[in-house]
């Protein structure tokens, strides 16, 4: 049969379906992006004029125009760094155990199922757990440490699940190569498997921390203050974080405070984007490592 390159009945129909699908996908994407753009634009319109050096370096005040967000920025940074420091080693260790040592045992499968469930538990439940466990039983008080520990619990399931995924993507040829040189299981994991899994682990950590930095409910539950006139200076300090400060301003009746809230949202967004950017740079550097 001769080759024919022109359109025919069957290909025309399939092409039409293809076009329709493309159009639908484009519309859905436009709606999602449009909503986001409107949101950011509205916040920008209300808040941009409050984004001054004074706003970034001042403490809260009864007068909206002299109120600032310094204490909340420092509080958020404290909490998020401590959260990462706690969630990363514990999460990676747990995932390594489950993936490399737990194998297909009944216990490992039971734990895995529960971790997947934990990832879906509402954050306020973690707040209640943090209140009972860290604030009261372990007597940490309403400190930065208790807040970070609570958020670390919240972040753990995501870190564990993404680390397991990352460990699974390490090719078995690398493990075998290491074993064949007389490496123990631990040496193989520590020197070969984990380094190759770093990009995936970092991606999971970014996701988890991005969620944690926006959390309000669990921190209010454990007693983070909505009004404090100082920035935390140690892990035992009382503290507040950006979302709580924003929530506080939104709930005030005066319109001027609403503008402060909008500016606070912009600061939170900037912080989040910076965090993600740093993580992406780190991830790329690790992905390139060892590659030509």
């Amino acid at each position: 049969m001769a080759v024919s390159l022109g359109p025919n009945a069957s290909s025309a129909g399939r092409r039409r379906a293809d076009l329709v699908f493309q159009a639908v996908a484009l519309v859905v994407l436009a709606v999602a992006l449009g909503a986001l753009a409107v949101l950011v634009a509205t916040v920008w319109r209300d808040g941009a004029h409050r984004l001054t050096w004074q706003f970034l370096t001042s403490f809260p005040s009864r007068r909206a125009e002299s109120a600032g967000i310094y204490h909340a920025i420092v509080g958020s940074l404290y909490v998020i760094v401590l959260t990462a420091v706690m969630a990363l080693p514990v999460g990676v260790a747990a995932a390594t155990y489950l993936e490399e040592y737990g194998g297909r045992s009944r216990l490992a499968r039971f734990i895995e199922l529960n971790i997947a469930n934990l990832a879906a538990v509402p954050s306020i439940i973690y707040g209640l757990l943090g209140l009972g466990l860290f604030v009261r039983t372990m007597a940490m008080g309403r400190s930065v440490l208790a807040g970070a520990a609570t958020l670390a619990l919240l972040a753990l399931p995501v870190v564990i699940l993404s680390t397991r995924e990352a460990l699974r993507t390490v090719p078995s040829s690398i493990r075998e190569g290491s074993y064949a040189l007389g490496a123990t299981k631990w040496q193989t994991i520590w020197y070969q498997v984990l380094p190759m899994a770093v990009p995936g682990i970092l991606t999971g950590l970014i996701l988890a921390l991005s969620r944690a930095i926006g959390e309000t409910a669990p921190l209010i539950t454990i007693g983070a203050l909505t009004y404090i006139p100082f920035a935390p200076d140690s892990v035992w300090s009382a503290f507040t974080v950006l979302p709580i400060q924003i929530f506080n301003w939104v709930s005030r009746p005066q319109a001027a405070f609403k503008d402060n809230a909008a500016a606070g949202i912009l600061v939170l967004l900037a912080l989040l984007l910076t965090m993600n950017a740093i993580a992406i740079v780190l991830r790329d550097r690790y992905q390139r490592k060892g590659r030509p």
Partner: protein
Amino acid sequence: MTTDVRPLPPTLSTIVRAGAQAAETAPVKIDVRDLNFYYGQKRALDGISMAIHANRVTAFIGPSGCGKSTFLRTLNRMNDIIPGARVEGAVRIDDHDAYGSGVDVVSLRRQVGMVFQKSNPFPKSIFENVAYGLRINNLTRSKAEMAERVEESLRAAAIWDEVKDRLHESALALSGGQQQRLCIARALAIRPDILLMDEPASALDPIATQRIEELVYDLKKAYTIVIVTHNMQQAARVSDYTAFFWLGRLVEYGRTDRIFTAPAEKLTEDYVTGRCG
């Protein structure tokens, strides 16, 4: 698969023939008795018994799925990491039971090195790839000694001249043939007694293959080499002994020239002449 066994290159064939006529003086390095191997319920190896001689090259040939790679991997217990794998019978290396209760698998693998079908350099520098085995086994006392051992290994694997100016570049930038020789250098660095090679040249072009074959020929002075290959010309070129596997059984085992010129079994003859498999 080609049907004829091409004439051996003059130098190699002369040596192979000469070696074959002399009585075997080399001691037995690996002694396998009645080895059965199971993947779960499936029996992959059935009653294998053979003696592999020291400082000789022994080739395993046979069609895909005949168990030759599985058998190779029982010799350094690489199959241990496969869930559901089970071994019966005995593998004695220098008269020690490799599957005995007191055996340290890690130490066994240090002495029975392995090169894989697909080159698997670590995503690190060339130097680090070779140094890794030395590091994890604490084999060197100083940086200078480590650098020395790395160079010695790279030279032994005939890749030193190609990489000496870029030791700290990524191993993944090397060509396929270079990567495989790097993997051989990596295996040699920890000075094993035995070197297992699982189709080390199957993914390489003819020139790179030839270099690996020359290397195998050189290395047998110092090592006992067991090589799995799909390529019968390769088996004929590099090996002193050849074992023919078929459906998990060892059909015939003997000196390479006899296996290829006067096989005792009909099945072997059919396979080496290309009538089956």
